[in-house]
């Protein structure tokens, strides 16, 4: 076994799908450019060659059609994986996602399962403007009936993808374009990791403490894990010991790990690449203060996109996205070390 392989996230996702397809004939993939092209972010590379057009289906540009078809296939006993090329395109097909996939188990009194994976690319930072750069984490996490995951690295991506395929509920698998390890888009070095060749699953709702620390808790996920780690390394030089938590899934949310960390550090910074208002940052802070407001020694800080469309202009886009410097600055504020 070559567990010393350093796989990119895109290859880890494709490998997870291939392993499930080999053992379960009900698993198939549908989406735009997922066949011949291998997915524009590489998540289905190689699958068409191995499994053929019956199980790896290029669709017309109609998310409404093929995501609706995915819901029907799932309810009829298949395990479809459908790719929504950019999460930003959810608008045209949201009825299939939140009114059908997410609710049909409930509406049928549990008689119908909807074992479907909706995988979708998120995130900005590469000047693709306001309709191709959003993460929209909270939009999906807000609505009941779906599990929502957003991994930060290849090992987690493979395990969460396998778990998503085997799950009997719809799972929205949100992968950040900038973590995929594509030849044409820079990605953080730590996004590619050692990945076992065999199939394995990771449980939903288990956060990972990426870096243990005693002074302050940084809670985040997806691309921002890497920005937070950069911030933590910079803060370490100033004698600040930050704990970094990668949530890995939004639904279910591992509140227990957050609470344990904040009970230790007393200070909380939440970082999200989604819009600021009504989002993940507020949910994490509320989860702490409604349990015990006395845990916090200082007001919590949140960093997110400040409720504006993601700009196309590179300097403007970089300005609205959280980064290591703004995370470090917010962390210093919680410690009374600003300026």
């Amino acid at each position, binding site marked *: 076994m*070559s567990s*010393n*392989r*350093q*796989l990119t996230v895109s*290859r880890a996702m494709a490998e997870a799908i291939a392993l499930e397809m080999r053992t379960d004939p009900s698993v198939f993939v549908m989406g735009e450019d997922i066949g011949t092209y291998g997915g524009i972010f590489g998540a289905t590379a190689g699958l068409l060659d191995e499994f053929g057009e019956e199980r790896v289906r290029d669709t017309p540009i109609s998310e409404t059609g093929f995501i609706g078809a995915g819901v029907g296939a799932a309810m009829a006993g298949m395990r479809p994986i459908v790719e929504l090329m950019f999460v930003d395109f959810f608008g045209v097909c949201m009825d299939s996602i939140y009114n059908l996939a997410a609710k049909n188990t409930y509406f049928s009194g549990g008689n119908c399962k909807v074992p479907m994976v909706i995988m979708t690319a998120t995130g900005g930072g590469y000047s693709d403007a306001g309709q191709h750069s959003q993460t929209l984490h909270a939009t999906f996490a807000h609505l009941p009936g779906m599990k929502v995951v957003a991994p930060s690295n290849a090992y987690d991506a493979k395990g969460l993808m396998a778990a998503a395929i085997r799950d009997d509920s719809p799972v929205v698998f949100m992968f950040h374009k900038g973590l995929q*390890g*594509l*030849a*044409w888009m820079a990605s953080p070095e730590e996004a590619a990791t050692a990945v076992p060749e065999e199939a394995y699953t990771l449980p939903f709702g288990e956060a990972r403490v990426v870096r243990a620390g005693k002074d302050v808790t940084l809670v985040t996920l997806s691309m921002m894990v890497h920005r937070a780690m950069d911030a933590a390394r910079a803060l370490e030089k100033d004698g600040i010991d930050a704990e970094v938590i990668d949530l890995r899934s939004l639904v279910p949310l591992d509140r227990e790990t957050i609470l344990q960390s904040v009970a230790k550090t007393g200070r909380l910074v939440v970082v999200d690449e989604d819009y600021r208002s009504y989002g993940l940052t507020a949910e994490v802070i509320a989860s702490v203060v409604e349990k015990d407001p006395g845990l916090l020694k200082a007001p919590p800080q949140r960093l997110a996109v400040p409720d504006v469309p993601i700009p196309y202009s590179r300097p403007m886009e970089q300005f609205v996205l959280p980064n290591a410097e703004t995370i470090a600055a917010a962390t210093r504020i919680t410690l009374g070390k600003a300026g």
Partner: protein
Amino acid sequence: MTDVTVPEDLWDANKTPEGIVANWFYSDGAEVPEGATLAELMVEKSSFDIAAPAAGTLRIVVPKDGTVRPGSVIARLESG
């Protein structure tokens, strides 16, 4: 010792003289099995995987983001 070489006919070097190593899937010094996907090259917007011609200890010659041409030796595999 086995060279890991970019095949001469992998792309038309008259049209596109150079590519880059986009990804290494093993670290320098790793033990790799024969046939393992070692690296991904990018030439303009096409990517090509390079497989290990033999088992051995990987010695990377061209690092990630380094330029390559058809015929370039990108790594060597030392046999145990």
